[in-house]
C-alpha cells in the first residue's frame, strides 16, 4: 500500500516515513499542501494520505476539500494529523472531508491501527470499484442533475465512447433524439420517487457511430448516509439483438402456423375430395370382381383382386388422413370428461376386436380430465386397439391406469404384446411410419400420429416404455379438470 505523508515539519515527515516504511508501507512525502495535492491528483498516486493541518501553500483542510472535489471517482482515504485537539477542530477537519483525525504527539501504535483501518476500507472500496468497472453489464451513476459521475467499461464499449467523453455529460445526451425529453422527465421522476428501485424501462440509445441500440434500463436511487437521494445508479442491458431475434421468431412462428394451417386444410380438402372418385373406383372394381369372377382368365381375376385390395387400402389411408387433419381443425370444446365413461364407449367400439382376440381389458379408477371427449375416445381406442393388434402368442392383456403429477394426470395403457425396440420409440409417432409389413400387421401408420396430435392439442405429451417381447406401456399427460383431482371410481 502506498501512502502519502504531507507535513512541513521535516522531523515529523522523516519519523513517520521511517516508522511506516518499517511496517511495510510504501511512503511518499510532501512538504506542503500544493505538493500533496500534486501527488494525490495523479491517478496512480497513493490512496491514503496522512495530512498535517498547518502547512504552507494549502493547509490540510484545504487539501481535504480539494481532494473530495477533484478525485475523479478514485477514493482517497484522508487522515488529518494535527496538534489541534479541540472538538471544534475535529468537526472542522472531518467536515472538510477527512476520514480520520489524530492529534500530535503521535502514538505510533495508534497511527498504525488507524492506517490499517483505512487500508481495510480502501481494499473494500477497490473491490467495489473493480466490480463496477469490470461488470459485464453497462453501468453508470449520475448525480441528481443527471450528470454522469461514474461509468464502467461495459457502458463505454456499448456506446462506443471513452469514459472521459461520457463523464460530465447528462444521461439523456445518449438517448435517441425523439426520447430526450421523456428520458429527462423519467430521470427526474426516478430521483423524486419515494421508492429506491424503479420499474425496468426500455430506451433507444444512440451510439457514437450513430447506431440505435435498444436497452433495458434499471434505475436505483443512490442515497447518502443520511438517506437523501444523491443520484441514480443505472444498469443497461443491450437487448437490440434479443429483440431482433424475438421479432424473427415471431415471424417464423406465424409463418409456421400459417403453413401448418394451409397444410392441414390441404390434407383435409385433398383427402375429402379424393374420397368420392375413390369410392367409385372401389365400387366398380368390386362390382367387376363380383360379376366377372371366373369368366375371364386367372390372370384377370388376380389383377382385379389387386385393384380391389389397393382401393380398399387407399380408402383406409384417406380415412385416417382425414382423421389426422380433423384433430386440429374439427376439434370440440374442452370440458370435464370422466375417462371411465370414455372407457365404456371405447370398450363398446372395440367389442368385436376384444372378443375375437380374447383380450382382457381392465382399468383402474380413472380421473375426470379437461378434454375433448370425442378425441379422448379416439385416443384410448387407438392405443387399446394397437395393444390388441400387436399381440404375440399370448392372449392380450391391457391395463389402463392413471396417477397424479402436479397439475396433470399421467394416463398409462400397458399391454403384454410384442413390444417396441428403444430405437423406434420416437419413430412410431411419426405419420406413415410402420415397423412391420401389412401382411404381419395391417394398418396405415397413422394411428399413433393421431394420438400424439390429440395429446399435444390438449397441452400434454405422449411417450412409451417398452421391451421387445415384453409388452409396451404408453403414457400421456392431460390437464386436471377445473374442479380439482376428479378421480372417479372404476
Amino acid at each position, binding site marked *: 500500500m502506498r501512502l502519502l505523508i504531507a507535513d512541513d515539519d521535516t522531523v515529523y515527515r522523516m*519519523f513517520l516515513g521511517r516508522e511506516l516504511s518499517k511496517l511495510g508501507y510504501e511512503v511518499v512525502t510532501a512538504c506542503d499542501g500544493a505538493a500533496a495535492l500534486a501527488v494525490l491528483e495523479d491517478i496512480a498516486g497513493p490512496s491514503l494520505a496522512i495530512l498535517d493541518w*498547518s502547512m504552507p501553500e494549502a493547509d490540510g483542510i484545504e487539501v481535504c476539500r480539494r481532494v473530495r472535489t477533484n478525485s475523479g471517482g478514485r477514493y482517497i482515504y484522508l487522515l488529518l494529523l494535527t496538534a*489541534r485537539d479541540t472538538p471544534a477542530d475535529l468537526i472542522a477537519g472531518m467536515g472538510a472531508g477527512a476520514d480520520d483525525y489524530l492529534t500530535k504527539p503521535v502514538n505510533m501504535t495508534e497511527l498504525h491501527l488507524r492506517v490499517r483501518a483505512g487500508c481495510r476500507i480502501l481494499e473494500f472500496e477497490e473491490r467495489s470499484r473493480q466490480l463496477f468497472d469490470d461488470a459485464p453489464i453497462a453501468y453508470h451513476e449520475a448525480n441528481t442533475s443527471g450528470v454522469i459521475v461514474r461509468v464502467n467499461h461495459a457502458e463505454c464499449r456499448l456506446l462506443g465512447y471513452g469514459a472521459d467523453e461520457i463523464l460530465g455529460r447528462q444521461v439523456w445526451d445518449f438517448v435517441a433524439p425523439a426520447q430526450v425529453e421523456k428520458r429527462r422527465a423519467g430521470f427526474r421522476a426516478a430521483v423524486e420517487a419515494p421508492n429506491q428501485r424503479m420499474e425496468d424501462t426500455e430506451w433507444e440509445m444512440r451510439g457514437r457511430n450513430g447506431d440505435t441500440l435498444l436497452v433495458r434500463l434499471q434505475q436505483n436511487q443512490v442515497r447518502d448516509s443520511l438517506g437523501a437521494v444523491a443520484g441514480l445508479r443505472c444498469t443497461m442491458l443491450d437487448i437490440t439483438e434479443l429483440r431482433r431475434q424475438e421479432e424473427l421468431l415471431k415471424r417464423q412462428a406465424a409463418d409456421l402456423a400459417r403453413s401448418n394451417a394451409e397444410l392441414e386444410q390441404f390434407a383435409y380438402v385433398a383427402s375429402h375430395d379424393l374420397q368420392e372418385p375413390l369410392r367409385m373406383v372401389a365400387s366398380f372394381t368390386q362390382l367387376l370382381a363380383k360379376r366377372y369372377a371366373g369368366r375371364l382368365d386367372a390372370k384377370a381375376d388376380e389383377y382385379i383382386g389387386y385393384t380391389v385390395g389397393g382401393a380398399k387400402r387407399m380408402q383406409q389411408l384417406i380415412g385416417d388422413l382425414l382423421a389426422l387433419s380433423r384433430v386440429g381443425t374439427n376439434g370440440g370444446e374442452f370440458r370435464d370428461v370422466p375417462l371411465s365413461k370414455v372407457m365404456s364407449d371405447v370398450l363398446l367400439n372395440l367389442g368385436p376386436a376384444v372378443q375375437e382376440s380374447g383380450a382382457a381389458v381392465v382399468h383402474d379408477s380413472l380421473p375426470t380430465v379437461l378434454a375433448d371427449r370425442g378425441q379422448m375416445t379416439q385416443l384410448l381406442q387407438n392405443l387399446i386397439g394397437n395393444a390388441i393388434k400387436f399381440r404375440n402368442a399370448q392372449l392380450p392383456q391391457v391395463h389402463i391406469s392413471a396417477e397424479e403429477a402436479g397439475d396433470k394426470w399421467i394416463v398409462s395403457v400397458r399391454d403384454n404384446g410384442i413390444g417396441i425396440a428403444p430405437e423406434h420409440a420416437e419413430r412410431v409417432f411419426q405419420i406413415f411410419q410402420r415397423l412391420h409389413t401389412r401382411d404381419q400387421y395391417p394398418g396405415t401408420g397413422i394411428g399413433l400420429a393421431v394420438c400424439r396430435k390429440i395429446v399435444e392439442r390438449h397441452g400434454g405429451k405422449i411417450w412409451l416404455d417398452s421391451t421387445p417381447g415384453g409388452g409396451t406401456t404408453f403414457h400421456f399427460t392431460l390437464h386436471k379438470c377445473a374442479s380439482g383431482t376428479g378421480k372417479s371410481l372404476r
Partner: protein
Amino acid sequence: MDEIDGDATENGDTCRKPPVPWRLSGALADLERAGESEFVRNLIDAFLRDTATRMETMRKAAASMDLDALAACSHALKGSMLLMSAHRLAELCGDIQQHAANREHRDYLAMVDQFDVVLRETREAMISHVDGLPRHHPPTPDHSR
C-alpha cells in the same frame, strides 16, 4: 514544566537536581534501543536545522507583533518539540502560541529570547548525545516534494 532528572522515593517525593534541557526519551529512545542510532542522528540533525529556520521566523513575527504568524509558527514548532522529547521547548512554544492566539499584549521578544536560550541548551545536549553515537552510514536524504 521543567525536566526533572531524579528518581521517585518510596514516599513519592523526588530528589530535586538542576533541570536538564533535554534527555533522550520516548520515541527517540525506542528507536535507539532498536539499533537505529543513525536514524536518530539524522532526526536530530534535521530538527536542529529546521528549528533554526523557524526560530528566525518566530523572532521576526514577535518583532513586528504579527501575532497570527507567531501563533502559527509556535504551533508548528510544538509538534516536533514533543516528538523530539524537548518538553521544555514545547511548553514555551505552547505559551507563546496561546498568548498570541488570544491576542494578549505581551513582551513576545523576551519570550522568544527565553525560548532561544533553552533552544541553545537543548541543541548542546542533543549534539553531545549525537557525538556519543556510533556512526554507521551517511545521513538519509529527505526526498520530499
